[in-house]
């Protein structure tokens, strides 16, 4: 049995058997059959549940005349995300804003939850940032296809080269195709590694200083961790906006 957080223990106690059966039906053998739910997954579920409750609470108390503190806070976040996406994508950015706002809030809460004793940042495990990066990757390609149709595939053949002979354009396109494909996968990698490495390092530094000087000093690093958590959630959202803007941009 691996060492588990209290919340993971509860989940494994309640759902270990059905989860193991489900995984085995998919031909996946969990490492520990009696504890198939990992800490990172349980923390993700907790964040998901927490956000769902908060959103339902805000939704049920929506008021134009007397908005509450929570409504003000979420309107502020939504306004901030909208301003950022409008600045990068342009005036037609509204349909994409909900995705960016959800990415920002989810990653922010995932980053910050590790500061509470008894919890752990799920983004400190590479699989979680990878999942978020795959969502972002699939989202911007889907939006690109929705926006431009099959012409979106032309993005992968490099910039349009009007005035060049056909043979040169074909050769250049053949050269650009693997480069473009690799650069799109590099985005996936850079989104994952940046978020994971920052949160992992932040957690580790706080832990190291806590074990050396347990009084006072860890507070400084916890403060630093809060700054890094907010900044990394923002950078992840910003890069998602930049990728969507590239996918839905018109050719000139």
């Amino acid at each position, binding site marked *: 049995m691996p060492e588990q957080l209290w919340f993971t223990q509860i989940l494994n106690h309640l759902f270990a058997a059905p989860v193991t059966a489900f995984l085995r039906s998919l031909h996946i053998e969990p490492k520990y059959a009696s504890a198939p739910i990992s800490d990172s997954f349980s923390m993700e579920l907790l964040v998901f549940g927490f956000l769902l409750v908060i959103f339902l609470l805000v939704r049920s108390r929506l008021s134009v005349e007397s908005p509450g503190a929570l409504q003000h806070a979420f309107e502020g976040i939504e306004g901030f995300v909208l301003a950022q996406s409008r600045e990068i994508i342009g005036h037609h950015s509204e349909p994409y804003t909900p995705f960016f706002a959800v990415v920002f809030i989810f990653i922010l809460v995932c980053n910050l939850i590790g500061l509470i004793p008894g919890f752990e940042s799920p983004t400190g495990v590479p699989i979680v940032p990878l999942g978020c990066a795959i969502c972002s990757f699939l989202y911007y390609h889907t939006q690109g296809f929705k926006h431009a149709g099959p012409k979106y595939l032309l993005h992968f053949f490099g910039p349009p080269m009007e005035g060049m002979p056909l043979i040169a354009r074909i050769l250049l396109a053949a050269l650009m195709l693997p480069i473009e*494909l*690799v*650069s799109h*996968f590099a985005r996936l990698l850079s989104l994952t590694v940046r978020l994971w490495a920052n949160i992992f390092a932040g957690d580790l530094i706080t832990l190291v200083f806590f074990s050396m000087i347990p009084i006072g000093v860890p507070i400084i690093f916890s403060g630093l961790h809060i700054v890094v958590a907010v900044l990394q959630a923002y950078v992840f959202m910003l890069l998602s906006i930049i990728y969507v803007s590239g996918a839905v941009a018109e050719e000139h």
Partner: protein
Amino acid sequence: MPSTPEDPDRKKSPWVQVGRYSQLAFMLPAGTVAGYLLGSLLDRWLHTTWIAVVGLLIGTAAGLIELIRTVSRDTK
């Protein structure tokens, strides 16, 4: 990739610039590693040994091109 339509009236916030430039350091290594990983996967699939090296070179080129694109777009 096409460039984003630049609206002259649209002001650029410093935060967006910070976000954009913070990824510059990641572009080159990410491209190189992604190229190598994709090449290795193809090698394993096709039972060859040379695609990883080609992937590494293509990845380096991809990282460099992405870097030049970002910098040249913002210095226009």
